[in-house]
């Protein structure tokens, strides 16, 4: 499941509103709308990761910070956002950031089920006491990731 983080953006909100309108006129079912949103999540995550290639710097003063459920939320004041081309100043900005390295993120890619086989050969030894014999061990680990 890709992050639903981007639903509260201009793009995401306009999609949600449009879907709501269609639901109201009963042209689509809520279930279908949900599917569309999930598809949107995938698409926007992929697009941002692959199609955007620019850097931004910003500087300001931190008003509040919160870290909950692995989500950082900051409120900054008097911030300057600087890109190569231009500069944007705002009095107040809220930053919501999800973990960029979470495995959840990778689930948005389709992973084939894979399996691992581990096999260890046994070592048979005879101890002086010849008490125990080691048997051949083989382990099979099969890991399915959806």
């Amino acid at each position, binding site marked *: 499941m890709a*992050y639903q*983080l*981007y639903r*509260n*953006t*201009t*793009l995401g*909100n*306009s*999609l949600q*509103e*449009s*879907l709501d*309108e*269609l639901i109201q006129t009963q*042209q*689509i*079912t809520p279930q*279908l709308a949900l*599917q*569309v949103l999930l*598809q*949107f999540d995938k*698409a*926007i995550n992929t*697009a*941002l990761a692959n*199609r*955007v*290639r*620019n*850097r*931004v*710097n910003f*500087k*300001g*003063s*931190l*008003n509040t*910070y919160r*870290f909950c459920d692995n989500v*950082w939320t*900051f409120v*900054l004041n008097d*911030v300057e*956002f600087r*890109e190569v*081309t231009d500069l*944007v100043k*705002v009095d*107040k*900005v*809220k*930053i*919501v*950031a*999800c*973990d*960029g*390295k979470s495995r959840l993120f990778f689930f948005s890619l389709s992973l084939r089920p894979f399996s691992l086989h581990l096999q260890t050969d046994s070592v048979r030894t005879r101890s002086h006491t010849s008490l125990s014999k080691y048997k051949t061990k083989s382990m099979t680990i099969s890991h399915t990731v959806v």
Partner: protein
Amino acid sequence: MASSANSNPVPKLYRSVIEDVINEVRELFLDEGVDEQVLMELKTLWENKLMQSKAVEGFHTEEQAALQAAAHQQAQQAQQATQQAQAQQVLLPPQQQVTSWQSTRPTVTSAPQQQVIVQDPKILQHMSATGMSAAATAATLALPTGVSPYHQLITSQGQILQFVRAANGAQYIIQPQQQMVLQQQVLPQMQPGGVQAPVIQQVLAPLQGGHPQQTGVIIQPQQIVLTGNKVQQNAQVMQMPGQPGQVQQIQQQVQQVQQAQGGAAPGPPQQQAKQQPPMMLQVDGAGDTSSEDEDEEEEEYDEDEDEDKDKDGGEDGQVEEEPLNSEDDVSDEEDQELFDTENVVVCQYDKIHRSKNKWKFHLKDGIMNLNGRDYVFSKAIGDAEW
């Protein structure tokens, strides 16, 4: 495509996301037995809303371009029908959705020319001459940057007109409401049973004689109010002083405008203005204690505030202070109100670091909405002190 000089990645990105999503869900739609038509409608709605929001620059579709072409032709025709010679039209539609009078289907307005920022009557003239008026029916112009205080007029319909006085003295009225039917001059058309919306058109008409004073503001409010089966329509044209002998029907908005200017209007225009329910000139935002139906707000500018506020009673001592304070930061408040955007950045974090009270942010894959506009980044690095 967009005529912007900078390569703004946002419209392309959004466009590609829309295409991707629509294509991906096509199957889903078919599986559910939903018609392709609905899918197209979804796409249209989505794009329209994006354009309405004006968060993205230069975001338009080919459909839009076609509409502009059509509007262009009509605009030319209309233009000939109206004033001769140098009647120039500058339409400043609200930064919202505009409905073409040709159809009841809402269409979006932004044009590639929309990025022209009007700073100067010359530019206005230039734009008009080059057919801006055409695009104007579908165009969303950015506010002139030379704008000094803004006033908000609340019409009797409850819509908020923003009255803007540009640095050069020209005045525009911007109506930020949705569902506005934008028409050329002198087209008293009624929309049969379709979407009814008030129309306000601002026209900047410099005098034919080339007078330096650009106070010609032609306002054509066309109000189509659907009440039951009754449709009222007022098509009025008003021209500011400077062109004597022109049509002088003025609606209340204009009268308010005039008053706000300090009563520059001549006598006749003011006569008819009082007919309609009074308008409000609300400057200081919500939380007024004075009633909304009075002209008192407006009289603040005439320095009668004390009397009026006293009338409202001492509900709070704050009441008296409000008008005093509200004048101080009129522009600031209204700027904030206008944008009304909580500037938000939605992204993912690579690393958040803190040292004492010095924070460092390493972010990625973000969408930002700052001052009403959208930006994206693949990486963002920031510093802040707590």
